[in-house]
């Protein structure tokens, strides 16, 4: 439904986007995730048509909306947009805002469509109110209804929840996902918040310095990061030094790890590093379990209470540190030694002492 091919964009000397490619199938929700200034908003604005594409091509459905020699005007692209600040028209009621883009319909059709949209987002009672009379979450839903009303081929959302407080953010992102899935809308959002990305999207592209570092399912981003940037940016974890024992085995301080893959950018399997080579293995907090019976002991160095669980930072005898998530009735003091055990499903290894390479063109 959405295809970006070799999209590149530079402003002055600064390369904002470099060789960006990805596909989004019809009905899928995609997400560009990255730190601020990584180029994700520029990508969104290129798709919307508010910036002029410099090279590459962008295709929506069967239509190339922007290519090397032409650019379709934003209003012709039939895309829906939800802005970070919602950009509701302050002089119009909720109803009129939602009906704003329905100029092609006659009066009754328009009224029907507006009513449908308001029902969809649960704002039927607020139809006659003005934007400033609504809460932030309600304004957000008006913006969504307004963008969906003209039946866009693709919905673009620019940091749609960043103006809301954390609790509302989570609730609303699930609500919005349900609405989009229910209506079968293809959508692309950009955000810097991985929780939002994971809650909303089927496919996530981690983007940094204008390059897509990895494009895939949230699960793969978390457990099989392609490179150190993705490993670092997504979730928590530590890199533990180890020695390659075979194609899928690495020995670390805590024992022999099975099912280790080389991170995609470093080769196909661990033998690529060489037998006996030093590597770093990404260990997530959920890879380590607390087990009082275990002979492996580690000292509690720091602890963060998170309600249902503790996140402990543990010091191994060698001085290396690992993280573990433990149900919160296991209340251990700092300095205490606790037993741990590995519970590794699949992990990835990175070349040791490799210069941190974030720019790894595919």
């Amino acid at each position: 439904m959405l295809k970006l091919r070799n999209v590149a964009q530079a402003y002055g000397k600064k390369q904002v986007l470099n060789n960006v490619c990805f596909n989004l199938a019809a009905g899928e929700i995609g997400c560009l995730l990255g730190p601020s200034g990584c180029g994700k908003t520029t990508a969104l604005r290129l798709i919307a048509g508010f910036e002029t594409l410099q090279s590459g091509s962008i295709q929506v459905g069967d239509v190339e909306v922007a290519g090397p020699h032409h650019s379709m005007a934003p209003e012709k692209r039939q895309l829906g947009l939800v802005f970070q600040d919602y950009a509701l028209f302050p002089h119009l009621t909720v109803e009129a805002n939602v009906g704003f883009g329905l100029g092609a319909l006659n009066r009754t059709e328009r009224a029907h469509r507006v009513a449908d949209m308001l029902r969809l987002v649960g704002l039927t009672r607020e139809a006659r109110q003005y934007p400033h009379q609504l809460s932030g979450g309600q304004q957000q839903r008006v913006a969504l209804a307004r963008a969906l009303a003209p039946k866009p081929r693709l919905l673009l959302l620019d940091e749609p929840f960043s103006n809301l407080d954390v609790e509302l953010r989570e609730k609303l992102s699930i609500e919005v996902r349900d609405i989009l899935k229910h209506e079968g809308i293809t959508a692309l959002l950009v955000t810097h918040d991985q929780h939002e990305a994971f809650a909303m999207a089927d496919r996530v592209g981690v983007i940094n310095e204008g390059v897509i570092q990895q494009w895939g399912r949230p699960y793969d981003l978390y457990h099989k990061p392609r490179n150190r940037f993705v490993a670092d940016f997504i979730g928590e974890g530590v890199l533990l030094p180890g020695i390659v024992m075979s194609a899928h085995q690495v020995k670390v301080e805590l024992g022999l790890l099975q099912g280790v893959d080389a991170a995609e950018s470093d080769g196909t399997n661990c033998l690529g590093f060489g037998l006996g080579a030093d590597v770093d293995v990404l260990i997530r907090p959920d890879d380590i379990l607390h087990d009082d019976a275990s002979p492996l002991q580690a000292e509690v160095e720091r602890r963060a209470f998170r309600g249902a669980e503790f996140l402990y930072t543990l010091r191994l005898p060698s001085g290396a540190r690992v993280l573990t998530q433990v149900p919160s009735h296991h209340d251990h003091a700092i300095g205490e030694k606790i037993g741990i055990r590995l519970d590794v499903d699949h992990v990835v290894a990175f070349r040791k002492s490799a210069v941190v390479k974030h720019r790894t063109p595919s």
Partner: protein
Amino acid sequence: MPADSLPSDAQSAPASYRGSHAFCRRVLPWLPVAPIALITAIPVLVVMSALADPDQEIWQHLWQYVLPELLVNTFWLVLGVGLGVTILGVSLAWLTAACEFPGRRFFSWALLLPLALPAYVTAFVWLGLFDFSAPLPTWLRDEYGILALPPVRSRGGVILVMSLALYPYVYLTARAAFQGQGRRLMEAAQSLGLSRWQGFWRVALPMARPGIMAGLLLAIMETLADFGTVSVFNYNTFTTAIYKAWFSLFSLPAAAQLASILIFFVFVVALLEYQLRAKRSYAASTRAASTPTRIRLQGGQGLLALAWCSGVFALAFLLPVGQILDWTLDVWETDLDARYLEFAWHSLLLSGLGALLVGALALTLGYAQRLHPTPALRVTARLATLGYALPGAVLAVGIFIPVAWLDNQLIDHLGLDGQILGGTLAVMLLAYCARFLAVSFGPLESGLGRISRSVDEAAQSLGVVGAKRLVRVHLPMLRVSILTAAALTFVDIMKELPITLMTRPFGWDTLAVRVFEMTSEGEWERAALPAAAIALVGLLPILFLIRNTDHAKA
């Protein structure tokens, strides 16, 4: 992030991208903007060229007989009024912003009211009351034999009256500065052992200096531009000299020569003001949020503050307004005739047309700047709005000369008779556009600035662009700004004197011209009726301003 990588400035980035489109983008916005800028630029250049190319004979005459007096008069006037408005404005601002005394709430907004009265109205009331032959001094002489009342028709008199009329400029900016300081810095000063009085001199006043300077420079610009007040007092300055050279000596070149000297002074002041404004916007962003605790003035001090505020308010507002009403009641039965209705009609027509035209030009300028935010366009918009600094007398000369030249060309080449453009409303309206574009542009620009860019993009993504977007989104959102701009311009044109006087069609009198004619014949009572009408209309935007700045609440 370097500025050139911001998305909004990046639209022209690909040079090879659709050549004709890029050309349109670059040239189209200038089509409306360039003529608007020329309306201001041409009179300035015409007047300046008189300075560059002086006529020896005229110059010698001016230098020998005219300039010495003008320079001395202008020097004392600027110095005196500058000092006067600073003392009045700062003291009143400090009292109402930082102190507590009986009546403070009332005075904090009431002290703005003199802005509604044109200075020339205050001036003729004062002359009517205190001149040698006026009832009050005569009565004092007859009853008590007091002869030593200082003459009001003097340099000191002009300075006093103009200070009373112009102090609100300083009051407004100084008060905002004092209020913005918050209390923490004064508390810090006190904790370091300074008394509050010392704190005022060493902390509050230095910090408010940019604000005070800004108001002071505006007041000085008004002083240099003033024509009505000084002519009521027969105090010769450049503006009155320009008028006399043109209409008594019929020497337009001499008028242009004088205008070119005045414009030089004005530019110096305008430049200072511009530099200050650039700095001040930076200072304003670090505003403290805490509200100051007021200094409670006890007993005698409180009464003193009350007396000072009431005194200024009475002399600057109550006295002129009361006297005008009194005179109006005396004369309205005989004066309110068909002729008077014609003056009022002329004033309303002119102000209405002017407000419409100026508003439309300002909106075009602001909109072009929004759609094509290039540095060149921004600078041009700034230049186009510089006309506010130009004295009306200068503009009248600067507009009339090219129009007369154009008329001559038309007469020569087309064989037409007489004046075609000269002496029509068109000339006046052009001059108003140059002078008051900034008045309309200010509110419209800030109104447009408040509309976020994503609103534009939201409309565009929903298929609403171009004129449709202007009508359906921008104009409704700008409603208040448009009304403000129109109201301010309307009132300013209504009060305007020199441009109207010098460029109006023959015998085409307005309320302001009527006031001028009556006062120049010393018929104070008969000037009261038109003055009352002008003051009444002038009060409206001031009340609006007071409501908006929340002076009543503070």
